[in-house]
């Protein structure tokens, strides 16, 4: 009997929290509307140059809403972000790469050296990543390092210390096609605050911000997140 009472109390606490989040959501929607209508002046000029590389993590189920993804990326291009990495764990965005790029203007697929070649231009470079660029890429890079180690050993030199360095690991990841810069900011579009397996090697000092589920995508909230980052 008392266990039932405690259980009911637990449910009540969670109900109160859900109501609190619902009210918070309404407040965020209002704020987002105010930002995108230009009522809050401070969001009008954002020093977007501070944001060199932005990553967007989308929950794989949300990633099926391709229209929303296209809208989000176009907004980022319009705001002036130069380099974006789109990630979802299962690779749905990677598979829809062509459709996404076809529907965007002033956006091209990421290539090495984009940071130099796109300077001063309006084009944004877009990279696609999935779990194969995370844990699986680390295994592939490990095999590459092992081959290098064996090669050097066959030459008769003990090169262990020289092969297994962070710089060589970064190089090996690039060689297996999962290189790419470390994002300054990572926006998570999904139900929970979690980076969902974004490549660990690139996540060292990235600021992680939770934006909520993709279905409640709002321009104002996006602008606010980028603005807050540029302040810090």
């Amino acid at each position, binding site marked *: 009997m008392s266990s039932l009472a*405690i259980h009911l109390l637990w449910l009540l606490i969670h109900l109160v929290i859900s109501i609190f989040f619902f009210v918070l959501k309404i407040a965020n929607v209002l704020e987002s509307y105010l930002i995108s209508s230009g009522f809050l002046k401070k969001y009008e000029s954002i020093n977007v140059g501070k944001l060199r590389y932005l990553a967007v993590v989308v929950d794989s189920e949300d990633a099926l809403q391709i229209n929303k993804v296209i809208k989000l990326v176009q907004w980022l291009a319009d705001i002036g972000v130069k380099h974006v990495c789109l990630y979802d764990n299962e690779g749905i965005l990677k598979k829809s790469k062509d459709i996404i790029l076809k529907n965007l203007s002033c956006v091209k697929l990421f290539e090495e050296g984009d940071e130099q070649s796109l300077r001063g231009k309006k084009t944004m470079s877009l990279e696609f990543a999935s779990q194969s660029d995370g844990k699986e890429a680390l295994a592939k890079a490990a095999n590459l390092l092992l081959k290098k180690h064996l090669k050097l050993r066959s030459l008769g030199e003990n090169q262990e210390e020289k092969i297994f360095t962070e710089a060589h690991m970064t190089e090996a990841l690039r060689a297996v096609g999962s290189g790419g810069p470390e994002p300054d900011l990572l926006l998570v579009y999904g139900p929970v*605050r979690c980076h*969902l397996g974004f490549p660990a090697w690139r996540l*060292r*000092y990235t600021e992680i911000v939770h934006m909520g589920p993709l279905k409640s995508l709002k321009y104002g909230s996006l602008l606010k997140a980028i603005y807050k980052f540029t302040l810090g």
Partner: protein
Amino acid sequence: METESSVTGGYRRRFTGFLRKCMFSVLSMGPVPNHIAFIMDGNRRYAKKRNLQLGEGHRAGFASLMWILGYCYELGVKYVTIYAFSIDNFKRRPNEVQVLMDLMLEKIDELLKEESLVRQYGIQLYFIGNLKLLSDNVREAVERAMEITAKNNKLVLLICVPYTSTDEILHAVEESCQDKLDHSQAVKQTNGSTDHCNQTSQEDHEHDIKVVDIEKRMYMAAAPDLDILIRSSGETRLSNFLLYQSDKCQLYSPAALWPELGLWHFVWAVLSYQRSYSYFEKKRKQL
């Protein structure tokens, strides 16, 4: 002779302890996290805010850790991981690094005393990281602490010092390469060297390093999946901590500095975890 204020203080402590136990019995009606990690950020800012010496900030941080550890134990959390010292921290001023190392030695000694929480609660201490980078006396103290507490099994406290995720991944990659080399050496010795030439490229791929091989060699393989990662001071970076292990865990960044982190932050973290639980279970099953 107890004074009146210490008697009422004692009653107040017992009452708040009772309330806390009630709160935890309500919380445990839902899923309880098994493994929580903490980035204990904000000790230096706390010292500056209160005009204290640098070491006092870290001492206040240690006291906060003991409280949080107590809450974890009472709720039934089995694994607690803390980011005690990053490899990057070696770049700080030498006297600050020395203060931290001296504090660590002092606290390890304190933790191993009879009346400490470690003994009382049966906490196993496990030091995670590139221990070779520690000075000899600290490393000896660390190894002694692990040996003494090895049989404790109520809660495991994993202390990351000195640690970075990239160092951990690199170390795991190096160890798994060595494992593969040892394995193929053993195979050659049993089969004789003539078979080596007949090895096909398919067999080569079977001997490739896989994700599970690397995961087996991570320092953190000693602990189960991470459920919540909490960073105090409102910073949203992971600062090279558990980057590999946090792919399916709730991140939480309360604005409070680490010495100010309290019971309600802890309760809120657990409630947020309970709200996201079904989502993470679904993700884990999809693997």
